[in-house]
């Protein structure tokens, strides 16, 4: 009798809409394949979360942080349907730290005609530009390199990504690891002389994991 009442009260509690269970979250079925089978297996939906914010925490540039995205970006360029009046499939780069090099992008299969480089002069404009690009419905993906990205800003980016059906990728330093974020996916990419290490810190509908030498 007491046992029975216990389970029923637990069920009642779980029915409460305020209780959120990670496992029960219907994971996004249509993830965007990353092009790395090893990574796809670990991501919910079998790939990058579309229409959401992905954060990649990196220790330094030059450890394959772009290479990680290239197969997915190339597939976005290729699949873009040309419907009027909006022309989707653009890839916006907001405040990149160096010059994205077109010959290498072409080698990766990126369509240069759909590249938009935005170099705002102030950090507040980085977030504004990214938000504009995300919510425009034109950009399939928006890569941004903000100086700071607080919880509220990440939430805004997440909402803008949902509104414009766009994929936001924010590159941040490793020090941001302990800051709260609304991103659907947080990755940490690091490297040493032996190889690279990719850690999934947070994944909506998935679980943390560590991968070695993906890129």
């Amino acid at each position, binding site marked *: 009798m007491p046992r029975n009442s216990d389970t029923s009260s637990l069920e009642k509690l779980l029915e409460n809409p305020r209780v959120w269970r990670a496992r029960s979250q219907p994971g996004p079925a249509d993830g965007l394949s990353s092009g790395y089978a090893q990574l796809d297996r670990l991501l919910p939906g079998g790939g990058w979360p579309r229409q959401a914010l992905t954060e990649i925490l990196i*220790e*330094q*540039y*030059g*450890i*394959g*942080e*772009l*290479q990680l995205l*290239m197969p997915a970006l190339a597939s976005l360029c290729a699949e873009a349907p040309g419907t*009027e*009046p*909006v*022309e989707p499939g*653009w890839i916006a780069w907001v405040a*990149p*730290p*160096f*010059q*994205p*090099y*077109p*010959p*290498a*992008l*072409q*080698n*990766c299969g990126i369509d*240069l*005609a759909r*590249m*938009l*480089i*935005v*170099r*705002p*002069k102030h950090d507040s*404009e980085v977030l*504004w*530009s990214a938000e*504009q*690009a995300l*919510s*425009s*419905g*034109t*950009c399939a993906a928006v890569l941004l390199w903000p100086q700071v990205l607080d919880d509220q800003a990440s939430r805004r980016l997440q909402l803008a990504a949902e*509104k*414009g059906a766009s994929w936001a990728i924010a590159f941040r330093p490793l020090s941001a690891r302990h800051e709260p974020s609304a991103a659907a996916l947080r990755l940490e990419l*690091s*490297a*040493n*002389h*032996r*190889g*690279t290490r990719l850690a999934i810190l947070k994944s909506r509908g998935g679980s943390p994991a560590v991968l070695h030498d993906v890129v």
Partner: protein
Amino acid sequence: MARARRSPVIARDSAPTPDAAPHHRQYALPLAKTERLWFCVYLPNLPLEACGPGDCDLAVIEERQGVHRVLLAGDRARAAGVLPGQSPNAALALLPTLRLEERNPIREQQVLELLATWLEQFSSFVSIAGLDVLLLEIAGSLRLFGGLKSLRRRIADGLEAQGFEASLAIAPTPLAATWLARGRRRACIRDSANVMAALRGLPLSCLEWPPTVLESLAGMGITDVGDCLRLPREGFARRFGVKRLLELDRALGHLPDPRNSWRAPERFCADFEMTEEQGDRDLLLAICQQLLQSHEQFLLARQLGTQRLLFTFFHLKAKATSLPLGGARTDRAADHWYELLRLRFEKLVLPEPVIAIRLRGGTPRALHTTSGRLAFHDRPPREHYYSMSQLAERLAARIGNESVHGVNAVADHRPQYAWRARDLFAARAAEVLTQVCQGTDRPLWLLPEPELLSTDNGHPLHQGRLRFVSGPERLETGWWDEHGIVRDYYTAVSPRGAGLWVFRNRGRQHGGEAAWYLHGIFG
């Protein structure tokens, strides 16, 4: 017949009997098409109205033979007894608050041109016929505007709404219309047979003939057009000049009277002048919006759009502030331009309050608009989405044109010349993109300038000793200009695992010691 020739009276009027006119028209249907009808707008108070609307305490003075005299007075001034011809001092004595303005013919001409532009909506043929007279040929517009009465009311209402006092007259010849308007006759004559009767009672002062001519005519007891027409033609021509005779003939339609059509300038340019300096930014924005709306009207009438706009804010003392706006696509919609303006205006620093605003349109371009969808297409409108060009415009409006661009590859083996920025705002938006097959391994990041690396016994260092993965790839090219290179490129890995693209300069500028540079990063 012989008698008629001996005394060739200008009046050839009533000789063809009244019934001849309808008879003539009955068989001359094609002729009716070429018949013209002239609408005259005479603005007697233009010097006053050009000084600004709604100022009753105003009088315009003009210098004549070295003496200033009142030319026209506003309503309140007139009520106080200020009359044309008075000296400024007398006028000021009658009304101490009177504001005296020197007559400004340039401004009057501008106002007249603005009105002509406005009138172009009613007729394809608008002509500026003098300092205060506008003529429209309206025979072709009657059907579109629902007849003469409705057209006349539209023009009259429009003029009144803009604050102009106008005298309107309609006649088959331009001169007759002008004279009737000057005579303040609310004449509306459609049939050329009636012109003579209408003109007959008109005082000669409406004809703008020189005072000496009028004086000598008055001395002969001739005061109206009817008297004039009764004079013998030869004698009239000899005494007062053939020109006057020709004018009478033109007015009656016996001689052709070709006019020049006024063409509005292709580029929009309008000023808004304020009576006092204004610093309220919201108000300034509202004025800009007004200007943008008239700009839209201007372009709409021509089915054109533009890609550039220039706002200029004038200050009393400081240099004018200009605010150029540019769009990625041709547009004329005031709302669209206003949106861009607002983004830019937020950041605009005005050194002083503003006294006038000028909007100058860019080169007009053909604008192809797409038809709107019918309402019963039930697909929800994606209003919050906008196109790439709109996005680029919005971004550029806030952070600057140079900060928003695309990229293109260039067929050059020198890495720093193998790409260039692509202007997204260029007229040819669909620029041909070059597909260049470069060497196999190129970094995704390129440094804007190669970075000199420190070395340890000739071995490059970056976070420690670099380990070479591949290379060298020798690039020796560009000898045809001063930016030639002789470099060995290597792919290297730093001790902390970063992929780097480094090169060794093989030139001799470093005195034998080959320098190492970092040029790219394998992101």
